[in-house]
């Protein structure tokens, strides 16, 4: 079951579920953003793991090396990292604005304030 070659994917699944659980279960908005980050990182890890070839080197032509890792998924993840940074920055700036508007970043307290507003 626990094959050595597949262990990166077990880590991916663990990180993914951790991230998703943090996003769902935490009321603190900053913690939610952290959870979101862990979730995104798991997918980055997934791509990096799939591109790695056992015994392969960096894909640079040199004498004596014939097995290379696949560089494409790694390059794709550069873009995904940029996307993740942009998302985090936007999320945190929203959290700052929410803190200014509600004087709290706890979701349950915000919901309470919104309910009072509606009543």
């Amino acid at each position, binding site marked *: 079951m626990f094959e050595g070659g597949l262990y990166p994917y077990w880590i991916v699944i663990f990180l993914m579920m951790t991230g*998703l659980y943090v*996003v769902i279960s935490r009321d603190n*908005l900053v913690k*939610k953003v952290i959870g*979101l980050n862990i*979730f*995104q990182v798991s*997918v980055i890890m*997934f*791509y990096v793991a*799939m591109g790695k070839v056992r015994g392969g080197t960096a894909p640079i032509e040199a004498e004596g090396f014939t097995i290379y890792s696949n560089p*494409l*998924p790694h390059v*794709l993840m550069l*873009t*995904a990292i940029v*996307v993740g940074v*942009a*998302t985090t920055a*936007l*999320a945190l700036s*929203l*959290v700052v*604005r*929410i803190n200014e*508007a*509600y004087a709290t970043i706890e979701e349950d307290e*915000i919901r309470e304030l*919104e309910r009072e*507003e509606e009543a």
Partner: protein
Amino acid sequence: MTGGEADLITRVSDDLPALQIAVPLLSAAICLLVRRARAAWAVAMVVAWGSFASACVLLSRVLQSGTISYAEGGWRPPWGIELRIDLLNALVLLVVTGICAIVLTASPRSLDQEVWREHHHKFYALYLLCMTGLAGMTITGDAFNIFVFLEISSLSSYALIAQGTTRRALTSSLQYLVMGTIGGTFLLLGIGMIYMVTGTLNIADMAVQLAAVGPNRTVLVALACIGIGTGIKLAVFPLHIWLPNAYTYAPAIVTAFLAATATKVAYYVLVRFVFSVFGAPLAFGELRLDAVLMPLAIAAMFAGSFVAIFQDDIKRMLAYSSVAQIGYMVLGLSLASVSGLTGGLVHLFNHAIMKSGLFLVMAAVVLRMGSTRLDAFAGLGRRMPFTMAAFVVAGLSLIGVPLTVGFVSKWYLVVGAIEGGLWPVAVLILLSSLLALIYIWRVVEVAYFRQPPEDAPEVSEAPASLLVPIWVLAGATVFFGVFTSLSVGLASAAARMLFGVEL
């Protein structure tokens, strides 16, 4: 015209697919630099209408000479990134750019009220960025590129929603951001799994490789991930919870824009992956996607409409109605037949027109009344006759009354259901339309048969800058309800193409 000029024109028009993305992207930066509200609007207007014109040219070219393939930077597909325009995405591109242009035309007066003037140039920059992302998702032929453009459009739409006047806009935007990012990441994961199986990112190439591999566990999980990812962006019931808040608290212009474009492009992405990557036999035959989507679609049709009936805020009511209408589109997909998919695609076209029209009416009402609560509509039928008449026309279309576009799409959905031997589904489509009748009627009743309160301030008709776009869209709901050759013709040709039936 000299030879050189003609040569330049052909070269530019050959590059139209790339310009469709590059021009709005660069113009967004220009909007930031000009800093003046009206100047930025003028830039955005030129770009948006130019994009629409270019989408029309591309569509006519696709109709004339078939699929356009454009190798970005001269790198040949499947290695380089390909922009690939066929009947399906030419139609979606036409809808997206058309709605972008019309809503942008209506925006200045409404924005003056809802967004600080110093921020207008940034608003238009975000608007153009969002348009870049949506157009990019539509025309790209590369799976990873879809993710990148999805994030461009999503990030800018989170920022657009956060511009709303109340602090609820901020929490709604963050809620959408969290869900949207989870959706985008699931899409990325799904694309990664297909890449694992096929070793390619080019959509056309993926289809070839996948057909050779056949169904296995990885492909199944990839389909599930892509289904969840696009499902969140598309707001398929029960993944729709971000939508009502986001649409309610965003500035009215943003709602009109996003309601008609963002979910439609997500629907397109789902259709593209299901048919062009996995292929109908695999997705419906082996993996039974239809069995998952159909109950959800029917639940959306009823739950969305039912909740809409009890809303006091009409903007929120229309948001829940969107959840129901998305249900119809997904139902069209899940019928897994040419006429069903035709219904879904026609509804994409039609719903974009009527919902953007209805949300622009909300923009006009907010502008004059300062609120979209049901009470604010009292007596508006007499006080804003043209605006409310447009609401009635678009509302009739939402219900699906003959001679409007809503009837056309429901007709094809019902035909698709009956062809598939699913009589109960056809009945459910008709029943859920009655719910739409109830929620539209509530507004019409208040607007036309209830007197405004004694101390109500004088209200004048909406300004022409809003009224003209509203009536263009309301007119379009009737026009395309009568002359269906463009919408239905294209949608059925696209559906037959996706099912691989001879044209």
